[in-house]
């Protein structure tokens, strides 16, 4: 296509980006205003004065610092545990030939058809029995379990595309089972691991129901999404919009950072999730 035939396409894309960016810009703008300024002209995109202090206030008084720390701990731990456990399971299912590996995969995949909302109550009860309620560890364990099946499925599907001869070459070169996983297959699985990392990160970072249910009795364990909603409903009549928006802005910083670093995997990750997840 020539430059000019593409022009309409570019115009549409630019307009669409503006539409998508607008709420974000508005949020950042509001986070820098004062409360009277918000009530005066809520739609103004440029604040009169940039009140950076709002962020400090949100971080400390609004407790978003605590929420951020909780979210980060949960997400990083879940990310690490999911990548570690599911890559191993996928390796076993896709690259070894122990009997029953297919049945195991099928059994796992069937559970994908049960919506997470349907299992929340039983999970809650089980967690209660295991004394996992009201702890970050509990949220981590349940989040990990929740992401495992999709991740295993995605990774094993990818691993199947790696030529068998590489395993054979590795066996002859002297690899034992773990070395074959660690030195040969895992490095080759980087693209799908990035995909799984993105999906797990987004899922855990943005999760609401699970951390809400698991932190009822201990507000100091709330994650950012839970904290944001609590903050909003905490002041029934006069929501402190600037602080709320500052909290929301804080919560999307890691997402943007992740996007910048793993940009090239983002699209494939979303596509994979759409196709296979």
């Amino acid at each position: 296509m020539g430059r000019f035939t593409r022009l309409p396409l570019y115009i549409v894309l630019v307009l669409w980006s503006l539409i998508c960016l607008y709420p974000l810009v508005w949020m950042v703008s509001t986070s820098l205003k004062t409360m009277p300024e918000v009530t005066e002209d809520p739609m103004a995109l440029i604040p009169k004065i940039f009140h950076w202090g709002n962020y400090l206030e949100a971080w400390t008084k609004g407790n978003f610092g605590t929420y951020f720390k909780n979210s980060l701990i949960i997400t990083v731990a879940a990310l690490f545990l999911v990548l570690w456990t599911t890559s191993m399971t996928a390796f076993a299912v896709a690259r070894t030939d122990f009997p029953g590996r297919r049945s195991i995969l099928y059994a796992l995949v069937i559970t994908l058809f049960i919506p997470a909302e349907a299992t929340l109550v039983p999970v809650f009860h089980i967690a209660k029995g295991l004394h996992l309620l009201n702890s970050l560890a509990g949220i981590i364990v349940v989040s990990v379990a929740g992401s495992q099946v999709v991740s295993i499925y995605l990774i094993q599907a990818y691993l199947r595309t790696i030529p068998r001869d590489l395993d054979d070459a590795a066996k002859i070169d002297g690899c034992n089972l773990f070395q074959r996983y660690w030195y040969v297959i895992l490095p080759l699985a980087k693209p799908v691991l990035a995909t799984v990392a993105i999906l797990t990160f987004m899922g855990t970072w943005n999760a609401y129901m699970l951390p809400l249910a698991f932190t009822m009795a201990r507000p100091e364990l709330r994650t950012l999404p839970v904290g944001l909603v609590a903050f909003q409903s905490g002041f029934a009549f006069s929501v402190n919009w600037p602080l709320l928006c500052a909290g929301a802005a804080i919560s999307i910083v890691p997402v943007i950072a992740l996007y910048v670093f793993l940009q090239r995997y983002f699209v494939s990750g979303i596509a994979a999730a759409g196709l296979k997840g």
Partner: protein
Amino acid sequence: MADVVLKDVTKIFERNIIAADNISFEVKDKEFVVLVGPSGCGKSTTLRLIAGLEELTEGEIYIDGRLVNDIPPKDRDIAMVFQNYALYPHMTVYHNMAFGLKLRKYPRREIERRVHEAAEILGITDLLNRKPKALSGGEQQRVAVGRAIVRKPKVFLFDEPLSNLDAKLRVQMRAEICKLHSHLEATIIYVTHDQVEAMTMGQRIVVMRDGVIQQIDTPLNLYNRPANKFVAGFIGSPTMNFIQGTLSKDWRGGLSFSDGVIKLGLPRRHNRRLQSYVGRELILGIRPEDILNPRFGKSTPETVTIWAKVEVIEPMGNETFLYLNTGSTSLVARFSTTKIPRVGEEMKLMVNMSKCHFFDKDTEIALL
């Protein structure tokens, strides 16, 4: 270096696919043995059994006198070169070659020395820092060989290592692998489906078909004394001419073979062997170079004259292939490039019966 012995080796895959059926052969120390056969005959399976990548269904495999049935590939002291090279895409050439040594915990100095030595031999020193993706097919092939030789294993296994190369490079690498063999004084088992590769490289050749060994012999013996019709047809290009017909005895006691149109008298010395086939159907085999152009040939007591029509002429440069029809059967002849008849011409041919082969019509076993 070491010898390899296979004793009654059988491999049956799921769904009862018999890929190797009672295979027995012996590769001597420092020998270059080629496994050859058409696609699906079980060559790769046999090689993978020796490597330990497949489990035996039955039989025994010995490497250097040691029973290796239950020994994993890494402890068999073998190296293997795969058809698609199987280089680790995420490692540089250097690390591809060093990987096996690292896993075996060689000191770093020693690893460096060996990798550079092998790279030197193969002329890939300049490529050591590249990833496999940045190499041509021929270069990848060398790296794959390099990865095998750095370990100095007892036995080298090659599975069609040249089949992904273009024709010219293939000929060149063929010679290089042979050179490598004498340089390393290694025991090599080499799989190919290409009979030219087999003939030019192997000290001995194992011909396989449908999981069964057809014949084990030196290249020249396979060519001159094929054990059955399959081997006769598989080795040599253009392939041997086969004519089905009957054997009869004339009033002087001489044997002659006829397919109804052409009649070929046999040398007397075959009488005893073929006596019992008189009056029965069998298959005559004659190689293209044993059908002679009478414009050069001097007739001898063992040549017979027949007539055929020239249907196609294929000039190869140094020689010419003629596709002929006798009226009852098609023949291929290999002529020199001069004094070639024209297409459509009826011509006289001389068949050198001293070089003919006979096969039983049912068992296809060679009769001479």
